């Protein structure tokens, strides 16, 4: 039988032969609008603001917009690293395989582990917001104030989200565009109405006219910068994926750069405008009265009933939409690690009907529930601390990815000025900023007085305890796996093949397959 070809859907010709697996992945052409949407939606602006803005205001007062602005710098620099690593190790797309390639399997393992842990923690945070806002949607204040009720609904949310990811229900690109547009319009409306009220004198009791100095990073103290930035890194988490979908866009020459720039501007715009509006509406008091719940609190005041519900719906859909862009990719990280023999084989299974990494996903959902319930039992004020711990982890693995890029391409750096800055200086400088934040915060958090909840675990701040605990647990688990399946851990760091960037050498093989 001669080979049969199947018509592609836009990117290239035939890519299928009988009984032979196809390695080409780029058949799902992503349009320009879709790639902007992916960039913005996977960051989940509504939910990120709801979860973070209050805590940033607690940390830095009126300089929150400045923090949001400068936090973007390291993320932007490292995104260049994502772009180049994705070029060399296409589609495999995350820190586990890249760090393994550039810096060896041990660091790569820890990077993958960090992603998984960060995801488990963010699921708990997501569940908390989703639980709260579910009650807010129905104006059930008594339930919204009950920790038990919010936790119960939060757990139900985790179960629903995990199920959705396991059975592979996904929003079509068009639905995604619609939802995101509604979210952005709602946030913009919120900002406009809030500012109109402020200027017409009908804002909150602590209303204050916006001042350009809010966005001036030079008015920040050094410790404010590091604490604020570590929180704000979280709101840009997910944006980095724009750099990795770029290659799949329809017009690879022009569209990717533009899509990244535009999604960047949209995100920055949303964050800064909403932050300005929110804090001028009722001052810092309005943001910090219920820091875990900023937007529902302010939404009620700004819009009045029943219009305030649209803001709550926007946050809820934002949280729901981010599940597909957070949980599934992370389950793929464990899948990839399992296939490389870096984690137990069963995590590499795909479900026969739904074709999703169901074992990985369900395990992660289960661990999230355990983590979430345990945290709630320990302390009700732990949300901020786990968010700060999350910041430490995100800074760690994204920073590491920045270094990995420079190390992997180290022999190419001097070939052109562009290489030197975009592959060498940029990602490493971004990584260095993130590591600086990480270390500075770790030192400060070693004194429990500096943790926002004021709790003290073993004499140090809870965020640091959480982060260090998971790091140690990760190292232990790595050694367990190492002793069972040593071959993955024998891999040597590699460099990019000479001439790859000039198109004279093929891309290196995937990390998942031990060679």
């Amino acid at each position, binding site marked *: 039988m001669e080979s*049969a070809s199947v018509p592609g859907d836009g990117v290239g010709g035939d890519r*299928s032969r009988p009984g032979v697996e196809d390695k080409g992945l780029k058949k799902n052409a992503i349009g320009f609008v879709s790639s902007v949407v992916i960039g913005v939606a996977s960051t989940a602006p509504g939910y990120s603001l709801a979860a973070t803005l209050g805590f940033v205001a607690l940390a830095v007062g009126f300089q929150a917009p400045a923090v949001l602005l400068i936090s973007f710098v390291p993320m932007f620099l490292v995104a260049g690293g994502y772009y180049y690593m994705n070029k060399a190790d296409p589609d*495999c797309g995350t820190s586990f395989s890249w760090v393994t390639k550039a810096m060896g399997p041990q660091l790569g393992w820890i990077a993958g582990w960090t992603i998984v842990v960060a995801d488990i923690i963010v699921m708990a945070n997501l569940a908390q917001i989703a639980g709260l806002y579910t009650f807010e949607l129905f104006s059930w204040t008594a339930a919204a104030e009950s920790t038990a009720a919010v936790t119960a609904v939060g757990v139900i949310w985790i179960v629903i989200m995990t199920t959705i990811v396991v059975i592979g229900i996904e929003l079509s690109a068009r639905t995604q565009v619609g939802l995101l547009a509604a979210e952005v319009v709602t946030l913009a409306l919120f900002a406009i109405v809030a500012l109109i009220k402020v200027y017409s004198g009908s804002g909150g009791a602590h209303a204050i006219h916006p001042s350009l100095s809010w966005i001036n990073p030079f008015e920040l103290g050094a410790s404010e910068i590091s604490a604020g930035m570590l929180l704000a890194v979280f709101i840009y988490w997910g944006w980095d994926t724009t750099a990795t979908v770029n290659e799949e866009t329809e017009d690879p020459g022009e569209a990717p750069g533009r899509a990244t720039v535009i999604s960047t501007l949209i995100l920055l715009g949303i964050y800064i405008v909403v932050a300005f509006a929110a804090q001028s509406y009722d001052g810092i008091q309005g943001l910090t009265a219920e820091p875990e719940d900023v937007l529902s609190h302010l939404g009620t005041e700004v819009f009045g009933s029943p219009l305030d519900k649209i803001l709550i719906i926007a946050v809820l859909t934002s949280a729901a939409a981010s599940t597909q862009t957070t949980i599934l*990719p992370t389950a793929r990280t464990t899948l990839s690690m399992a296939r490389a023999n870096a984690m137990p084989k069963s995590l590499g299974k795909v479900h026969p009907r739904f074709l999703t990494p169901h074992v990985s996903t369900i395990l992660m959902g289960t661990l999230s529930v355990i983590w979430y319930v345990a945290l709630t039992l320990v302390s009700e004020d732990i949300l901020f601390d786990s968010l700060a711990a999350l910041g430490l982890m995100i800074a760690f693995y994204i920073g590491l990815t920045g270094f990995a890029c420079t190390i992997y391409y180290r022999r190419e750096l001097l070939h052109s000025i562009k290489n030197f800055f975009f592959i060498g200086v940029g990602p490493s400088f971004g990584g260095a900023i993130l590591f600086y934040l990480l270390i500075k915060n770790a030192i400060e958090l070693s004194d429990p007085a500096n943790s926002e909840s004021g709790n003290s675990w073993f004499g140090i701040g809870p965020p640091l305890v959480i982060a260090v605990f998971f790091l140690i647990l990760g190292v232990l688990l790595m050694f367990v796996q190492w002793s069972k399946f040593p071959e993955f851990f024998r891999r040597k760091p590699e460099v990019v093949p000479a001439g790859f960037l000039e198109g004279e050498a093929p891309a290196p093989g995937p990390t998942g397959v031990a060679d």
Partner: protein
Amino acid sequence: MGLIVVGHDGSASGDAALDRALEIAAGLGDQVTVVFGYAPPGLWGGEIAEHEEAISEYGEKVVAAAKEHASGHGVEVETQLVPKKASEALLAVAEERDARMIVVGSYGDPPLKGAILGSTPNKLLHLSDRPVLVVPGSRP
């Protein structure tokens, strides 16, 4: 000589569809192409290639088992892995090869469950411009 395209996902209903397709093909003197579509759910995000590879490895097992299952019927059987969603893969192969018909198994899901989980037979019935035969699988 015509061609019958069979969708197989490794389930018992896939085997039921294959059996029925073999019967028909033997009667008509047609050949059979067993198709497994393996687009990973979730378009974007990290490690998508690893995910796709895991699915295609599973798909290879499925089509190999199907080929084994089909041997001895006196029908020429080929297999094909297509990196698309199941319904799209079947439609594309049927179109490309100008197939006589598409044969798939059904899970026997109630309509609402099928709508939530995504029912390949349902999609095919709406989208295909050639005959579609839906073979009920054994209910679990």
